């Protein structure tokens, strides 16, 4: 029993990172209907920025985390400006290909300039284990869950309570109507990319600290899993991304716990296919009819 609880906890920790990433996918999709395949690589960049701030500039971990988020937010805005904005009136497939291009550019660019070797992430915070009865959790795992929850609450506040959040929701609902209402669509989209990228970077830095290693391709698999998490929760729906992330984390952990480690990903994706067959819009998805 305690082992099941411990496994659930492991799943939640893993899922928190998927959730942070999935939020970025879902926000961008919600606002410009683009699956931003470069998102996983922004997560990787975030980890490298964190590495740089801690290892080279010797900053405190939390300052490094915030700075990495800020710089990555900037990178996200630049990516949108350079690679997606000029294609906004083009067919959706063109933007999708552009996104794949950015993804490869970031991965291979980082490999070229910094080497494809794994690097050890500086252990800015020493690991301390806490025991609650049979359960065991480390300060870093608590930090991951805590940061994820705080960031998600912050995001909800921004989307629900601020003017910018209202603009985001408006653009998402109907871009043309939003323009007519005097909303600066370009600025709103940039803001969305900034927020999404900052969340991804936070995930990257936390994972770097947790697993103690980073490499230029570290964003690939989590990127895909987070995308799936976003679809599972209902793409475009913010709470759905968080739910999807946690679900995938828990599913993945439990599959290994029952001894199916050989088929870990197969089982996870198999379950997803079943869920999507039964509810194609995702768990929290509404069966909204598309206006033609």
């Amino acid at each position, binding site marked *: 029993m305690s082992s099941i609880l411990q496994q659930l906890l492991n799943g939640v920790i893993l899922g928190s990172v998927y959730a942070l990433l999935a939020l970025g996918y879902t926000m961008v999709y919600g606002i410009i209907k683009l699956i931003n395949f470069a998102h996983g690589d922004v997560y990787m960049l975030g980890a490298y920025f964190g590495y740089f701030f801690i290892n080279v500039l010797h900053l405190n971990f939390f300052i490094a985390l915030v700075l990495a988020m800020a710089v990555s937010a900037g990178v996200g805005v630049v990516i949108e400006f350079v690679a997606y904005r000029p294609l906004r009136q083009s067919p959706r497939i063109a933007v999708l290909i552009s996104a794949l291009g950015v993804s490869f550019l970031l991965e291979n660019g980082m490999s070229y300039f910094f080497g494809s070797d*794994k690097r050890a992430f500086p252990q800015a915070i020493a*690991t301390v284990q806490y025991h609650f009865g049979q359960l065991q959790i*480390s300060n870093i795992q608590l930090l991951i869950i805590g940061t994820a929850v705080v960031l998600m609450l912050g995001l909800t506040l921004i989307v629900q309570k601020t003017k910018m959040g209202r603009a985001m929701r408006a653009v998402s609902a109907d871009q043309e109507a939003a323009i007519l209402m005097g909303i600066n669509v370009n600025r709103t989209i940039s803001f969305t990319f900034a927020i999404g990228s900052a969340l991804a970077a936070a995930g990257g830095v936390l994972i770097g600290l947790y*697993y103690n290693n980073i490499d230029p391709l570290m964003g690939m698999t989590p990127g895909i899993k987070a995308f799936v998490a976003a679809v599972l929760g209902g793409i475009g729906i913010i709470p759905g991304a968080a739910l999807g992330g946690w679900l995938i984390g828990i599913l993945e952990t439990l599959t290994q716990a029952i001894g199916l*480690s050989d088929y870990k990903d197969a089982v996870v994706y198999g379950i997803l296919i079943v869920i999507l067959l039964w509810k194609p819009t995702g768990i929290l998805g509404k069966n909204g009819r598309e206006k033609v």
Partner: protein
Amino acid sequence: MKKVIAIVAAFVVVIGAVVGIGMSKKSAEKTSTVIKIGGVFDTSGDASAYGEAEQKGANFAVKRINAAGGIKVNGKTYTIEMVNKDSKSDNTEAASVTTSLISNNKVNAIVGPVTTAATQAAVPAATKGQTPMMSPTAGADSITVQKNGKVQPYIFRAQFKNSYLGTKMAQFADEQVKAKDVVIFQDNSSDYGTGITSAFKKAYKGHVVDTASYQAGDTDFQAMLTKIKNQKFDAIVINGYYTEAGAILKQARDMGINVPVIGPDGLGDPKLAEIAGNQNASNVYYAAHFSTQAPATDAATPFVTAYKKAYGEDPSQFTALAYDAVYMIKQAIEDEKSVDKAKITTGLAHIKNFDGVTGKMTMDAFHNPKKSIVMVGETDGKDTTATVVK
């Protein structure tokens, strides 16, 4: 008419010249007392670190053999000439360099290539050229085996095949660590991990409590570790490479699992301790081919001393294996009393109790040396012990 005569004359001259050169070459070969060994080493590109170490080892072996009076066959003394070519960490290049060594340089035997993939690419060239080829460090079981299950007649290796590691690691777990129960982690994205695991299971006398599989690139091992944590086991065996092994090590030690960790040569990299954190990289044993700290045979110590004198650094295991490869070719020539390529091939296949610097070797039916391995022990991220497993 004049033109025709001129052309015919030109032809005669050219053909004469070609024949003449060919004949002079032939006559030179007849009296030549040089044995040519081709070296296919990656001295540029991704694998250049290994390639350079191996080229140095082969050159050093040749230098020592020649300095000691060369090889005596039927009263004749031969010296060895090493012809090295760079295969540029590229498989196609490895194949074409091998062909060029055989047809242009007329080598009697080849040492190299460095990696499994390059060796696989060079196999057809060596087979077609009927030239014995000994790779110092190609590990995959398959390279000396044809598709139909028969042995590749011309291909040999100086290192043990990968799955043989599993056998020796099991022996180490039984005899040195005295582990009665183990948990195995295996990288199931390559033959390397799964091959070693099955060989380990076959040879291990204790009980395998659980086998967990992961993919190269995986980072999260919490679930697997939580699953095994409350079971009884005396050691963890990680059959994979240092990146994932480093992550497993860190997460296991963080969880308070402090049993010995045993792994194959894939763990033998300084990055292991870097990824796991030095404080977590204790009580770890990984397989190595050669260690200056633990001489496997009497040949090892003089080799290390001489090498240090010549190059001012310790020989690496790659250097030692390439060195052994050249000496095995020498042994084959002496055993068969011939420098003929076919005879060298036979000689290599019958090598028995050969005292190499990396161990006492006997070639099995599939051209894989059976020999001792070294288990290197780490404490706080540093190599502190070395045990020879005979």
